Each structure stands twice: as C-alpha cells, then as structure tokens.
C-alpha cells in the first residue's frame, strides 16, 4: 500500500508563510543590528505587513481548502486577515517611537507581534478545531510575552502573569470542550462536526452540550466577555500601551472570527441553547463593561472596560447570525480597530517614559494646548460612543439592525440603552479636554512621523467608514459565506 499524502496548497497560506519567514528573519537580523538602527526593524516589519496585506487581499474570491480541510481561505477569513494586518500595521507604527522611549527596543518585539498576527490568521482560517487551537495558542503565547515586555516594570510583569495564568486556565476549558465534541462526533473538523450533528440528535447528547458550553468559556475568555473578562482591565493597564492597543483589537477580532466560525458553522444544531447563553452574556458584558467604565480614572483602564462593552455589542452579531449578523461583525471589527487604535495612539502620544499620563485628569485643557490632538481624540471618543457621522455609529447601527432583523429587539434596546450609558464616560474625556483648565504644563508631545501617520490613518478610517461606508459594507456582505 502506498501512503497518500493529502494535497496541500501553499498558495492558500502564502500570507502566513511570508509573515513567518520575515518574523524569523527579523529575529535573526536583530542580533546583527546595532542599537541605533533597531528602528529599521520596525520599518521593515511594517513594510512586510503592508505587503502581506496586499497578498492577502488577492486571496479574495472563491474559497480554497487545503491541508485536508484543516485550513480554509474564504472571503470571511480574508476580510479578517485584513483587519488583523491593519491593526498590526498600525500597532507597529505606534510602537516604533514608543519602544525607544520605553527602552524596550528589541527585535523580538516585532517578531512576536508578527507571530501573534500569524496566530490570528490561523484562527480566522482554521477549518478544524485543531488549527484554531494552534492559532489561538500561537497568538496567546506571543501576547503573554508582549504584555510583560517592560521587564523592569512590575505592573507589566503582573499583567503578563495574570494574563498567562488565566489564559492557560481558560485554554484548559477550551480544550476539554474540544475533547468532548471530538468524543461525541468523532471529528475535530468543523464541517465534519456540522455534518455529524445534522444527521444525529445533538441537543439530547449531554457531551455535545457540555462541550459547546466549554467552548463558550474558552472563546468568551479571549473576547473578554463577562464573567470571563476580569483579566482585561489589569492586563490592559499593565501592558505596554502599544501592546494594549494591539490586544484590544487584533486578538479580540481573531477570537471573534473563530468564535463565529465554530458556532455558526459547526454548532448550529445546538443554537437554541447557546444563543440563549450568549444572549445573557452579551447583556451582562455590555452592562458591566459600560457601568464600571464610568468609575475609572485611568484612561487605559477605561478603554479596557469600554472594549469589554464593545465585545458585548459584537456578541449581538453572533447571536443574530445570518448574513446580516456576520457582515455586521466584520464591519464592526474593522471600524473598532480604527477607532480604538486611534484612541490608544493619542494616549501614547501623550505618554512619557516613566509617567504614562494615563489619568483622565492629565487631559485637562488639552483642547487648547494641543487643539488638533484633542480634536482627534474627540473623533475617536464620539466614534466609540457611536455618534454619527463616525465609523462607530455605522458599526453599531449595522449590528443593531442585524439583531432586530433576526428578532432580538429586546437585545437591541438593551444595546442602545447601554450605548447611552457609554456616552457618559466617553464624553468625560472631551469634557476634561475642553471644559477644564489645564492642571499642569504639558510635556512636549512625543510625536514621531510614524505616530502622526498612525493618527492620520486611524482618523481617516474612522471618518471614512462613517461617511462613505458603502464599499466596505459591500465587501463585508461579500464575505459572509462560511465554509
């Protein structure tokens, strides 16, 4: 007998390959670069990401399976890849000057970011629980390290420790869930599971139900929804700001990608159970996130809670499901990437070595010291609050529409009420910037051309998606077919 090597098509994973190779190259190159040239690593990785983005974009079109149905390239994953790459690129832009200023200017930094990105792409494209698990781990492990990258800073250490322990803990649940599904269905392949459940009783099978619940725990942890959200504020606060920005966008999106694929493709049979659970979780997540954010004084922490709240909105999309739901999630994630990264960019611009100036009071009177920066911050805040004509509004509108279309009107109402609550703390930032007198002198801004570029890109994205979203929406609607 001869061994049949299943066909595998490298083209389908070309972005991943590019990233992997270049990541390793940077890792090596780092050794040979002298300290003052380290920036070039940043530039390099930025270029790589952009390039990868182009390659990834070309993959739009009909779906391609490879590696014996372990990995799939469909518009859905491609769209998500673009989100990841956008957020990675912007993160790199934010980092270049930031790492210098924080004195953590090592090559691994970029390598790890790139690896994390690879992980995300695997998650988005994973057609098999195994692939998804791998991607998730690759991403997480890089993030554990990145969170603690400011080695000399206790908070940074604490952040990474907490993230690590809890992350691993949650992974345990995820895996146990996978195991149960495997046990019940005999396969870890998403389509396989779907087919099996289509032909066999699903709801009556406790193992499947329990497995599903455990998956919810695993993914719920990654997307930070209540009650698995508690790591978020601490980690976001402790981690280097650039990484916080990254974590709040890329990994969250990746987790959602996997979450959505697994639940809508593999487990539709169990929907009537998980949709109720997710319904409750979404409500809790939105409400807790928004409520607690009000009481925050540290802007990073506040944004952490706001990201929890946004996870809640995004969950609505999964619950709603259907083309509308999926497309809305895609759009929302992109919009969220722009506005959230932008907000963090402003935080970084105001930050100093040692003192991060991350207390909201530190923004008093910013509007008159640095009008342009303040305007930018306002744009992001209003966008996050979901006020037209910003991207955030269209995103929220899209998700609520999805929820309503599929009959979750109560959920939508809770959602909008929540966004009113959220207005309160987003406004507070604008209030202190414009309506309070400067408490103390502002140190000169640490504006590098890269940061400026980052700000421009994010502002452009936020406004453009707000005013001319048509193209992106069209793209998102083209990317709703899951395989």
């Amino acid at each position, binding site marked *: 007998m001869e061994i049949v090597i299943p066909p595998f098509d490298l083209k389908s994973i070309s972005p991943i390959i590019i990233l992997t190779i270049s990541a390793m190259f940077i890792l090596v190159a780092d050794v040979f670069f002298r300290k003052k040239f380290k920036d070039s690593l940043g530039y390099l990785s930025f270029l790589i990401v952009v390039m990868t983005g182009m390659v990834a974009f070309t993959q739009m079109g009909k779906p391609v399976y490879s590696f014996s149905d372990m990995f799939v390239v469909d518009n859905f994953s491609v769209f998500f890849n673009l989100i990841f790459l956008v957020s990675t690129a912007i993160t790199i832009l934010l980092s270049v000057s930031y790492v210098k200023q924080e004195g953590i200017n090592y090559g691994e930094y970029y390598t790890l970011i790139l690896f994390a990105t690879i992980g995300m792409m695997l998650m988005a494209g994973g057609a098999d629980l*195994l692939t998804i698990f791998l991607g998730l781990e690759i991403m997480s492990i890089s993030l554990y390290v990145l969170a603690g990258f400011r080695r000399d800073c206790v908070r940074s250490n*604490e952040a990474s420790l907490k993230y690590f322990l809890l992350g691993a*803990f949650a992974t345990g649940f995820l895996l146990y869930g996978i195991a149960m599904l495997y*046990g019940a269905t*005999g396969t870890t392949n998403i389509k396989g599971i779907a087919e099996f459940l289509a032909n066999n009783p699903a709801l009556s099978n406790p193992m499947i139900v329990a497995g599903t619940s455990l998956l919810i725990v695993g993914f719920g942890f990654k997307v930070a929804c209540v009650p698995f959200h508690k790591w978020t504020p601490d980690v976001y606060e*402790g981690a280097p700001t650039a990484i916080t920005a990254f974590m709040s966008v890329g990994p969250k999106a990746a987790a959602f990608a996997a979450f959505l694929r697994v639940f809508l493709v593999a487990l539709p049979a169990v929907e009537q159970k998980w949709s109720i659970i997710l319904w409750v979780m979404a409500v809790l997540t939105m409400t807790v996130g928004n409520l607690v954010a009000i009481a925050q004084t540290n802007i990073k922490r506040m944004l952490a809670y706001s990201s929890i709240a946004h996870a809640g909105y995004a969950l609505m999309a999964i619950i709603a499901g259907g083309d509308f739901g999926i497309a809305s999630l895609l759009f929302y994630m992109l919009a969220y990437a722009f506005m959230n990264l932008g907000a963090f960019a402003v935080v970084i611009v105001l930050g100093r070595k040692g003192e991060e100036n991350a207390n909201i009071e530190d923004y008093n009177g910013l509007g008159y010291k640095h009008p342009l920066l303040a305007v930018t911050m306002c744009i992001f805040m209003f966008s996050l609050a979901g006020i037209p004509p910003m991207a955030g509004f269209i995103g929220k509108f899209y998700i609520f529409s999805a929820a309503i279309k599929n009959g979750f009107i109560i959920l939508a109402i809770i959602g909008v009420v929540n966004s009113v609550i959220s207005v309160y703390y987003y406004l507070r930032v604008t209030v202190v910037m414009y309506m309070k007198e400067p408490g103390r002198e502002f140190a000169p801004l640490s504006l590098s051309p890269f940061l400026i570029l980052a700000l421009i890109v994010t502002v452009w994205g936020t406004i453009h998606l707000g005013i001319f979203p048509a193209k992106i929406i069209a793209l998102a609607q083209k990317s709703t077919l899951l395989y």
Partner: protein
Amino acid sequence: MILLTWYLILSGVLFTIGAVGVLIRRNAIVIFMCIELMLNAVNLAFVTFARQLNSMDGQIFVFFIMTVAAAEAAVGLAIIIAIYRNKATVNVDNINLMKW
C-alpha cells in the same frame, strides 16, 4: 477489561483537581502545575476517545497539546522569573497592584 468510561471519569477528576488547585494554591508555579494537570486531563480524554472511536485525530491532538504545553511552560516560567526579579515573590496574592 476496563470500561473506557473510567478513563473519562479519571480525566474529569484530574481536570477538577487541577481547576481546584488553581483556585486554592498561592504559589504561581504550583498554580501553573495545576494548569498542566488540567491539560493532561484533556489529553487523557482525547486518547480515550481516540481509542473508543479508533481514529487518530485525537492522539494527534494530544501531541499538539503537549507541544503547546511545553511552549507555555517555557514562557510561563520566564514570566514568573521576571516577576520574581522585581518583587522577590511568586505568591499571587501579593501580586495585585492593579485592581478595580
């Protein structure tokens, strides 16, 4: 012949022990060990299922899990060392600068 169910029960017990351990121990390393225990419980489950369904997927999965666990161990220990450097403790209850 021992029923496969027993293996499953065992893995469940292991998992629980691990989880409880995470909750009750204070030493970061021990907590991490407990997590490893949980992962191994998962492995056991996978193997059992693989056996039951006599398919390879489960066992392959186990390999991956072990690898990942190793990687995690490396990173985790590094992190714990880093924190020990700064705080001279690995007691997670003393590590709560950031709260609320």
